[in-house]
């Protein structure tokens, strides 16, 4: 009798604990969602507000620069009124904000100043695939090679470790655009083996043909190389220090004392060392859009960075604001996904939420 009572109470306690775990996970997710929603709102408000704080307003600025270009006075006034009306600058601020939000909800980021009939979303849609095609392979390959290199360096030790570590430290602490400039000069100008500029040869039209892809690939190597070297360096340094730390930890010594085989130990070590590296991968995928702005400028690669550069030099505020919003949203979404994955995967975070630690 007493025994069964004990069993049922234990069952009940276990069930309760399970329920508590799932509600605490839900609470964790809700709290994180609230934080990121808050950050998103701040980002949107900044994107709305800051371009409108330009002395005068963006329309005045663009029209006065047109005026310097020798456009007639009456024409200027017509352009001015057209823009003021289109951007709703004649309405009070709160109405402008509501209109802005409504447009955002429809994916409408406005019209470009400099390339006037083109909408901002179209311009971004043209540039974005180039940036993604450049960065995604660079991030993935850099991540795999870098982690392998770092792990081997920590494991082997000796001169290999020193060489790999110093090399990685150098490429990862070097500003990425400096590496890009030096590579461009070395491999395209001093020893001209690769084409120096653009995403494809001048006069070629983007299309899905073998010739175009081959041409685009030769232009791809230099920017790709400059990004991959930096990623490999950063990942290798991180992985090496994690693996070295794990190699010296108590559970490894204990495992050795128990006579565990090396392969088993290595598996334990890498499983532990991988967690921050996986986070790093997810976060760098979040910076995909805005991570290599200047690399693209250096190589005149037709991606987001070059679009931003020309937009800034032409005072094309709608394009700039659209791009900054896109960069911010990409980073926020990636960070949010990482936090969610962590809440689900890492038992320590769940425990912390239940107040056990």
């Amino acid at each position, binding site marked *: 009798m007493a025994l069964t009572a004990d069993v049922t109470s234990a069952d009940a306690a276990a069930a309760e604990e399970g329920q508590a775990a799932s509600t605490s996970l839900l609470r964790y997710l809700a709290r994180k969602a609230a934080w990121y929603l808050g950050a998103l709102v701040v980002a949107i408000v900044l994107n709305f507000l800051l371009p409108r704080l330009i002395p005068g307003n963006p329309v005045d600025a663009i029209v006065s620069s047109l005026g310097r270009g020798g456009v007639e006075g009456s024409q200027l006034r017509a352009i001015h009124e057209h823009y003021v009306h289109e951007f709703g600058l004649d309405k009070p601020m709160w109405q402008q904000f509501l209109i802005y939000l409504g447009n955002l909800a429809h994916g409408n980021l406005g019209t470009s100043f400099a390339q006037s009939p083109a909408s901002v979303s179209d311009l971004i849609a043209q540039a974005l695939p180039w940036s993604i095609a450049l960065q995604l392979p660079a991030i993935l390959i850099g991540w795999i090679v870098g982690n392998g290199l770092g792990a081997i360096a920590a494991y082997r030790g000796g001169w290999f470790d020193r060489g790999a570590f110093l090399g990685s430290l150098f490429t990862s*602490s070097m*500003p990425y655009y400096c590496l890009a*400039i030096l590579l461009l000069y070395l491999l395209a100008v*001093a020893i001209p083996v690769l084409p120096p500029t653009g995403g494809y040869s001048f006069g070629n039209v983007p299309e899905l043909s073998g010739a175009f892809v081959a041409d685009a690939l030769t232009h791809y190597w230099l920017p790709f190389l400059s990004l991959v070297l930096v990623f490999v360096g950063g990942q290798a340094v991180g992985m090496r220090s994690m693996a070295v730390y794990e190699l010296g930890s108590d559970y490894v010594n204990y495992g050795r004392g128990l006579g565990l085989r*090396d392969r088993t130990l*290595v598996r334990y070590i890498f499983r532990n060392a991988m967690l921050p590296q996986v986070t790093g991968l997810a976060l760098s995928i979040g910076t995909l859009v805005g991570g290599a702005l200047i690399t693209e400028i250096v190589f005149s690669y037709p991606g987001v960075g070059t679009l931003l550069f020309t937009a800034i030099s032409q005072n094309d505020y709608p394009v*700039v604001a659209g791009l900054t919003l896109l960069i911010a949203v990409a*980073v926020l979404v990636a960070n949010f996904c990482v936090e969610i994955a962590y809440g689900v995967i890492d038992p320590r975070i769940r425990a912390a939420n239940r107040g056990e630690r």
Partner: protein
Amino acid sequence: MTRFTPRFYVAAAIVAAVLLFGVLGPLVFSGHELGTVVGGLYDHPSGRLWLGTDNIGHDVFTNLMYGTRTSLVIGLVAGALATLIGVVVGTLAGYRGGALEEALMGVTNVILAIPSIVVLILISIALGTRSTVAMAVVLGVTSWPWTARAVRAQAASVRTREHLDVARLSGAGTMSLICYDVVPYMLSYLCMAFVLQVSSAVLNEAALSMLGLGPSGGVSLGIMLHWALAWESVRTGAWWAFVPPTLLLTLLAFALLMLQSSLDEVFNPRLRRFLRRRRPAATPTAEAA
């Protein structure tokens, strides 16, 4: 006390050399005025013009000295400002705790979540014309959050130490507690945070300048690169226009990082002992492999 490693001396020497170049360079090598035309488009380096001329015929060497100065001023001012804000916010949050901590850390985390390059681009555009100091302030007020977060963790751990109870019993006020009993315990950490902030401010300034949002009217390392890229110096082989600022930026960034990590070794004795101990532990596996 602690002993400095050779790495520290090398890093400190490089940083000092760059500082001297930026501060004293323009006084020592005053051959050419900043902003005067001394040659044509990308003249080759010569005995008179050590690093040739840039796209508008200005002396590159003179630009380099003043550019280094501007970059350093921006880095130091922005780094100091960011560290200061970070320390104030972090210690207040960590030491006081409660609702104040929740509020301050909430703001910090929200700012931390938004990529700083976005805020930098938007503010720089809104400013229209940007002086050197304005750039430094913008870089400073956008980069303090991670310092604040780290300082908060440190302050919260210092808060529970016993010497604070003694100070409280002898009637010290909150301000004096924070200034004399909490902050000194974090000084070593603050040194390193400052070095990191300076390096990231220098690099961010260069990145912004290359996007075309640099300090208006002046010359900085990033602005030199901006013009060198815009005027095709890389593709025409005019290496003297872009190699010097690139190398100087790389050198400075590398030296500052090295300085930070060697300071870490000096201040954090656990790291040193750990370094010595792990070598023999790592070798058996190496042999087995």
